[in-house]
């Protein structure tokens, strides 16, 4: 076959903005808007201090890390509701491993292993039995939560291993929190995986049109299995980070996180219907939710007011972000 066309598509013309739809950019506008608003209104209250901004990074690390993994699951058109409870169980298995003298590495293996096993079971049930992922992971959420309560009868397990606690939660490298380092590592890795590798392409293809993907030779079941292993792993790691940050494992960690994680992903611009996904968007979505939480607390509002205003901001930010995009 002859030389490929020298009509350089996408080179002579400006690169089209149309690669993903507006939703992917809204969150940037919305996030910037929220940041500016709080920076001005809460300037005197220390909102813009480096410490506080780093705090936001710390507080959102677990949601961000689970979010980038969830981006893959949602990109395939599936959902994983079990991440929150997996986080709890992983924090406990990690803590128990350390308590039993297996050291930092033992804790790491136990926590990640817990996540991987949950992800594996989810993935196998979804692909082999073709049960909707909503039901599988809802069931799994209960099972894992029950196990987390049962394993120590709801008692927390303290972790006395300062290397573990430093490396997986409490430490700072210079003035950069280790949690921020983990977040960035996870985001960059996931971004490359989604945008730059054939696995990422196949993930999006599976979500875009599963049967067309299969006709094109994509092993869609394997892709789905992999993405659930991914959320499992991320939830396990988030559990380790909770443990390191709080110097303990506890069954309440991560409680309700599934909703925050999914919210961050959707806010970031990934479509619940699959086929469209953005890791960076998810990170920004997570940071935005974290910033709102932080700002409203610093404002000194009641919990009820915080809830109302947070809801309002989410809706307004998206609506205005969309408007800004159009212009």
């Amino acid at each position, binding site marked *: 076959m002859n030389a490929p066309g020298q009509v350089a598509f996408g080179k002579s013309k400006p690169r089209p903005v149309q690669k993903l739809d507006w939703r992917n950019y809204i969150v940037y506008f919305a996030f910037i808007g929220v940041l500016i608003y709080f920076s001005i209104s809460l300037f005197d209250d220390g909102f813009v201090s480096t410490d506080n901004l780093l705090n936001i990074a710390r507080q959102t690390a677990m949601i961000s890390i689970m979010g980038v993994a969830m981006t893959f699951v949602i990109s395939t058109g599936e959902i994983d509701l079990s991440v929150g409870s997996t986080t709890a169980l992983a924090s406990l298995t990690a803590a128990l491993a350390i308590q039993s003298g297996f050291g930092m590495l033992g804790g790491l293996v136990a926590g990640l292993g817990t996540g991987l096993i949950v992800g594996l079971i989810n993935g196998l049930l979804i692909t082999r039995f073709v049960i909707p992922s909503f039901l599988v992971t809802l069931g799994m959420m209960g099972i894992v939560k029950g196990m987390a309560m049962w394993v120590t*009868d709801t008692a927390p397990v303290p972790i006395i291993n300062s290397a573990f606690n430093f490396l997986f939660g409490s430490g700072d490298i210079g003035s950069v*929190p280790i949690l921020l380092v983990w977040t960035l590592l996870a985001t960059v890795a996931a971004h490359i995986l989604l945008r730059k590798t054939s696995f990422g392409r196949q993930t999006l293809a599976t979500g875009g049109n599963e049967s067309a993907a299969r006709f094109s030779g994509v092993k869609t079941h394997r892709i789905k299995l992999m993405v659930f292993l991914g959320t499992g792993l991320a939830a396990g790691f988030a559990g380790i980070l909770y443990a390191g940050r*709080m110097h303990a494992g506890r069954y309440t960690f991560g409680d309700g996180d599934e909703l925050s994680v999914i919210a961050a992903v959707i806010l970031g611009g990934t479509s619940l219907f699959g086929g469209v996904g953005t890791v960076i968007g998810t990170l920004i979505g997570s940071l935005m939710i974290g910033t709102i939480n932080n700002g409203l607390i610093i404002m000194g509002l009641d919990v009820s007011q915080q809830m109302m205003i947070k809801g309002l901001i989410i809706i307004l930010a998206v609506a205005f972000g969309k408007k800004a995009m159009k212009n």
Partner: protein
Amino acid sequence: GKQDANSSANGKSETSDLKTQESPKSGPITINPKIEDKEILGKGPYGEKAVSAKTLKLTEAEIAKIKKGNYKAAIVMHYTGNDYSTAQIRALKATFKRMGVKVIAVTDAQFKAEKQVSDIETVLAKKPDIIVSVPVDRVSTAGAFKKAADAGVKVVFVDGVANDLKPGKDYVSVVSGDNSGNGAAAAEVMGEKLGGKGKIGVIYHDADFFVTKQRSDEFEKTIKEKYPKIKIVARAGISGPNDGEKVASGMLTKYRDLDGLFVIWDVPAEGALAAARTAGKDNLVVTTTDLGTNVGLEIASGGIVKGLGAQLPYDQGVTEAMLAGYAMIGKKAPTYVAAPAVKVTKDNVLESWRLVYGADAPDVIKDAAK
């Protein structure tokens, strides 16, 4: 939310603890005799003065009589995800066992009044003779409890009653920890550690839940009355146990010069600890309520948490079972019984642990206390 409210965690991290804290297999039933008689600050639902749990007793003869009845009991909790509940359930099961009472169901309402009503309906299908319950909400659960009472079930309330139920008639008794006393103990530790002056913050439970409300109210009252030079400069609410870190971080951002922080119970207090560590505020004085493993460890190792007020869930559970036993044999029971609060600091953390859980503290705490 469905989250935690009043109390929490602790250490039954080694199974051996479990055995030691159970009461002896024979002989009369009473609460742990080592508990000292202290004045109870809180008042009963109808303003009654509290009767100390120490005055209760079931003799061997009475126990034998109860055993003959082959009674059935249901435990209808507001929540079971904290140590306060688990310790009580453990004590209830153990004590009922000695009384030959079968525990037919344990339910968890997840702090949802509507679920508790369903739970009561469901357990009634098994026709229990006794219901021991922490009501989620005194208003909206009243109907269901009334239904149980009308069906002849003897109800023992814990920590609160449902509206419109008459003591002695619709329910046997209400057993309560001394929530106000808990708050007062935490305030006293705060006052002592700060040398009577400084700026502090309060993280309270932003929900209509009287258990936690009594604690924070009494904390603030005690600070104002006893330590006028301590100023409460910041106040923030949490809605669940996982909010502690976020709220404390925000507070420390805004008020960099805080000297102390009271957190409503130990689980969010752990979050506050993480926040204080990241903010580099090693000299902050944190006090709280409920003796959980992690805060116990922190107190023992001389960390940021300096002390707390604790209740006695295990003995409270024994008391509840005893009162149910009273009802079974028609023995007159006091309508309001309270167990005192314990003030825990580094000096007495190991003894307090023994008092609260009837067992030695876990090794980590013992090591730290050395």
